[in-house]
């Protein structure tokens, strides 16, 4: 009998940074992913559906940036289990 695959192979690792981390009160979480993968837009919709702060901070029109595996992403960027998706506000370095 085979062991179940580790979480890292069945889940999407989501990272929240800066203001969003503070607003949500969470830095990282692992979301279950459908076998065929998903898209950034679908992940955002699922997070928005939690309501409350999630719905307001991620509402359409809010300036939220998304990166997948450390590269900037758009709504239709595909994501699959094992990927790292990060959500953050517009950058303010320098």
């Amino acid at each position, binding site marked *: 009998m085979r062991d179940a695959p580790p979480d890292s192979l069945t889940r999407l690792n989501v990272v929240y940074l800066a203001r969003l981390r503070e607003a949500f009160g969470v830095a990282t979480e692992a979301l279950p992913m459908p076998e065929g993968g998903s898209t950034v837009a679908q992940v955002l919709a699922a997070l928005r559906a939690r309501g409350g702060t999630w719905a307001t901070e991620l509402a359409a029109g809010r300036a939220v940036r998304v990166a997948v595996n450390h590269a900037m992403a758009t709504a239709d960027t595909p994501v699959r289990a094992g990927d790292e998706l990060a959500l953050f506000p517009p950058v*303010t370095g320098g």
Partner: protein
Amino acid sequence: MPVRVQTADFDVSHEITVLRAGDARVGAVASFVGTVRDVNDAAAVSTLTLEHYPGMTEKALEAIVGEARARFDIYDALVVHRVGELAPTDQIVLVVVTGAHREPAFDACRFLMDYLKTRAPFWKKERTPDGTRWVEARASDDEAAARWQAAGAGDTAP
């Protein structure tokens, strides 16, 4: 193309010395240092805390340096960016560019700062008498970066 993200302070003179060491082709060194102001958006700032996204930030900085090297006739470039809690007068960021001549060195230095401010994952949080607040992105920074897109490859400053 060295890129560093660190909590420690940096010594500008030392960084320039290392970057151009032994390179007799270099006739121009341009540099920019960003420092912490004690006032922002009409409020007194007592501390500035910088956060980054380990892994992506370094990658983004390397991509920006690579783009500068492709666009401008320069030899090398260095970006050092600090993170963690800083106080007014502290150094935040250093950009150094070496080249044969001043014009591409100046241009690349400005390009690097304009792109860094809009593309590198860093976030600033400041402490004011009213508490802490996240610094909002500025439209003027986006406009400064966008001017380079309009200018096109190999052009001079916008």
